[in-house]
């Protein structure tokens, strides 16, 4: 374990369990996961299909309720919060990038980027906005609607949207799942860039070892349990670990 007590954590989960259904039909998606995500780090969650990586992310982000255990985002324990409080928490402290359907088709790229701030009734920090736009390289696309953007551009808009509200953490769920390799690489590079340059905390769920190698740290899930992790991964070390876990 490389985590030391000096490191501040954006998200901390303890004894996280999630059971779907009841009795015989009960599915144990998570069976007691302890995991922490350091502030300003890019962490990837990996695991085979059905390992519970998406469930973990949903629980960490307050999108889904947990059966047991606790999750803290910053200094807020979220498992006891009401739906309304969770919603407000997501507004202020959490950013999302999904695999697809990330943008509202009726809004332009710029409106989509500003949407979380508008929902929260906050003003965008213009300096940050300019910096984000320039980093994402979308300045000439701001007035376009999603249907006029390529898949890669759409995902970059989604990342920009997640960044603009300066959340404690950004959860990215298979952010390049629908992209060709070049666009995917662009988005991943950009995610890593925003961690390095803007100090953003990012937690990414992926099944692609290449994508995971962009992260500072990779945690591995199997059958609802945290089974292993890697720091400073490369595609090869991730792949090896996966093969080891599959075996």
């Amino acid at each position, binding site marked *: 374990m490389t985590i030391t007590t000096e490191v501040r954590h954006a998200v901390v989960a303890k004894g996280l369990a999630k059971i779907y259904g009841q009795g015989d039909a009960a599915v144990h998606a998570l069976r007691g996961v302890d995991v922490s995500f350091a502030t300003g780090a890019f962490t990837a969650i990996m695991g085979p299909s059905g390992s519970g990586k998406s469930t973990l992310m949903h629980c960490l982000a307050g*999108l889904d309720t947990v059966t047991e255990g606790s999750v803290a985002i910053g200094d807020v324990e979220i498992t006891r919060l009401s739906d309304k409080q969770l*919603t*407000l928490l997501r507004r202020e402290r959490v950013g999302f990038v*999904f695999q*697809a359907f990330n943008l*509202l088709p009726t809004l332009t790229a710029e409106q989509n980027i500003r*949407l979380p701030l508008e*929902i929260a009734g906050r003003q965008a920090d213009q300096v940050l906005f300019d910096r984000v736009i320039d980093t994402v390289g979308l300045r000439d696309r701001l007035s376009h609607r999603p249907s006029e953007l390529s898949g890669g551009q759409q995902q970059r808009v989604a990342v920009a949207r997640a960044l603009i509200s300066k959340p404690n953490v950004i959860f990215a769920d298979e952010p390049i799942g629908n992209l060709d390799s070049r666009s995917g690489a662009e988005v991943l590079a950009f995610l890593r860039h925003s961690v390095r340059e803007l100090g953003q905390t990012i937690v990414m769920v992926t099944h692609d070892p290449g994508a995971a190698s962009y992260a500072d740290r990779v945690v591995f899930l199997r059958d609802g349990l945290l089974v292993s992790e890697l720091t400073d991964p490369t595609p090869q070390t991730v792949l090896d670990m996966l093969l080891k876990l599959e075996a």
Partner: protein
Amino acid sequence: MLRTTLAGLRAHKLRLLLTSLAITLGVGFIAGTFVLTDTIEVGFRQKFTADAAKISVAVFPKAEQNAQELPFIPAETLTKIRAVPGVTDAQGLVSGPTPLLGKDGKAAGNFPTTGLSVPSGPLNRVVLTSGVAPAKPTDAIMDDNTAQTRQFAIGATITVLDAKGAKNDFTLVGLFDTGVDQQLGYTGAIGYTTDTAQRMIDAKGFREVDVAGADGADPAQLRDAVAAAIGAGYEVKTGSEYADELALQSNVDTGYLTLMLLLFGVIAMFVAALVIYNTFNILVAQRTREMALLRCIGATRAQIFGSILLESVVVAVLSSGLGLLLGLGLGAGAMAALGVLDAPVPVGAAIALTPRTIILAVVIGLVVTVGAALLPARAATRVAPIAALRSQVEEQTFKAGLVRTVFATLFLLAGTGLTVAGVTTGGSQESLIIIMAGGGVFFLGVLVISPVLMRPLASFVGWLPRRLFGVPGKLSVDNARRNPKRAATTTVALTIGVTLMTLISVITATTRATVKAQLDAQFPVDYMISDQRGGDSLVPRALADQLRQRPEVGSVIEMRRADARLAGPDAALDTSRYQVGNFPIAPDFRPQATTGSFGDLVAGTAALNDDVSRDLGRKVGDTLQLTTKEAGPVTLKIVATFDRESTDQAPITLPDADFERYFGRLDNAGVYVNAKDGVASDVARRAVEAVAQPYPTALVVSATELRGEFDDALDMMLMIFGGLLGLAILISILGIANTLSLSVHERTHESALLRALGLTRPQLRHMLSLEALLLGLIGALIGITLGTVFGWAAMQTFPFEVLFRAPVDQILVFLVLSGLAGVLAALLPARRASRASIVDALAST
């Protein structure tokens, strides 16, 4: 393929039910109309046949040429009929006004009670509900309703005026039911023995003679025998011929009812068709991938087309069946309501469900549903197999195509042209029909062009929500603008109802204002006194003189009338009778002349109304010759003309003294009374009533009452039309709910995304409610505009000046209600959307 379709339908029972509901309501209304009117018709026929069974032959007087009234059948004829071999009984019937005096000593009601003869023996058709038939000259029977409202019971003494106005006392021996006779139901009725009835009415014979023949005798032979015995001048019918005639007459009446109700049924079905069209369109759009997958695995275009049509057939059959049941319920309910309200329709007949009703209900349901699904089904065939592989449904982009623009322009221009033509030709029945056609064509234009209007209108209506409601407000406006075609069809359905409601409220408001102004001009007085019996019955001068004595009364205006023909060379020109009247002497009787002046109305002059002046070609300064009763032919100099609508004067008005000299000292056709300034209206009213008390038939009506009655009639009309249009509006609300719930389904991902980004549940619900509110308001705005414009146009066809009124308060209510309707429609879809779990919504594709 069939199995796939049916499996799909079974999987979406709720959607199927919602879609069916629109058609069910429309079909139910139409079927209900038929059930109701058929039942009424059957009831009438049963009643008439039962009556006719008592009569073998009926004899009526034949109208002489140019005669105003039918002659009486003299008593000798009755004697002759009785002598015809085979006749076992013959009874003469009469009826006429015999005003019943209420307990206050005044003639009861606004119209004289109808007196009728009650024959004795098997030919009696009066149905007693209690007591016995009149046997003695002092016996009388009364209809239940009058007995109840005037509080008379069997054994009571009632006072009735005869034709000469004298009081006659009778003992009430029985009560009867007026049945389906609307006239009797309205005026109330009193039955006497035949002789008494003749005396009371002052009848010189009978209006009808009913004949009974021996059992088993052929009515037709008896008819011919009777006809031969009494000679020409009579109409002789068999009982069943008479029943057929009555039934035919009542069927014509029920026919109007059917037609009017069906009109609303057709409107409702049209709205339902729009709803179905929209629903299928959205379903096809949502199932693009399903359709593409079917194409991928080998389904042909025809099979896809067939599967959508099959779905619509299933919906149609289901909803027509339900509609038929609903119609039966509606028909039975309406009959029960009519029975409770004691309407003059035969109750008790079994609810009639004819094969025609069943066939029509199913055919209409089928044609409308399948017809509305045709275009969406065709759109489904255009789905490319490759669409199965696309992950995100493409956003609809809408551009006003050339075809749409051309068609819309054509319709709008043609509609405008027709309407303008109708308005400018004005003043006739045809121009109203032209304007109605123009309205219909224009509406089609609006229907075609409405997708183009949606975006600007949504921006316009959404201006305030966008600023007031933050992100949900903005997003709702965007969503309303998002799919203009869908929004247009949804809102146009509501527009139809709102247009017609606005149209009717504009027409009633305009009529109200116009008639009020006319009444004010014609009766610029507080009270009117006329004789309850109407016609030639007059109000005595003594009453007017007594009124002048009262301190509460300001002025008394006496209106007298007589008929006269033109005289001298003018008589050859025009042989018809003209109504001549006096120009009352009263300080506040100051009508306006169109040309000339009433100030010049001195001895030997006359004033004509504009119509007579035009018909006779006489202007101010010309002369007119008139044959008068007392003074023979006189020559009158015309000094003024006036508008018929602006004052209640006779077409030919003479100075008061001249009128008396020419026609004698006549009593008043009407007396108008103004209260003295400063006298409270109830005090003045009591004073006028007190003076009128000794004159039983002198009917005092206050101007406010008259306006009140008129207002009530208009309000009633507005309510009935509103209620009938309510169905179309209800269906359009279902349409909004359907569209919205399908849109919500379509936007599951979006909603989940918004929730993930921090939109609270209430905010998401508000967003959808606002979108529905916008749709409702847009539909209402178009409807209000169309309704107001075409209401104005329709009023231009009236043959007189109208005071156009758009009832702003009512129209605002329509606007608010439409908005609320939208919000109401959004209730369930919004709830469902906001309750959905974010994780599930994100996972579904």
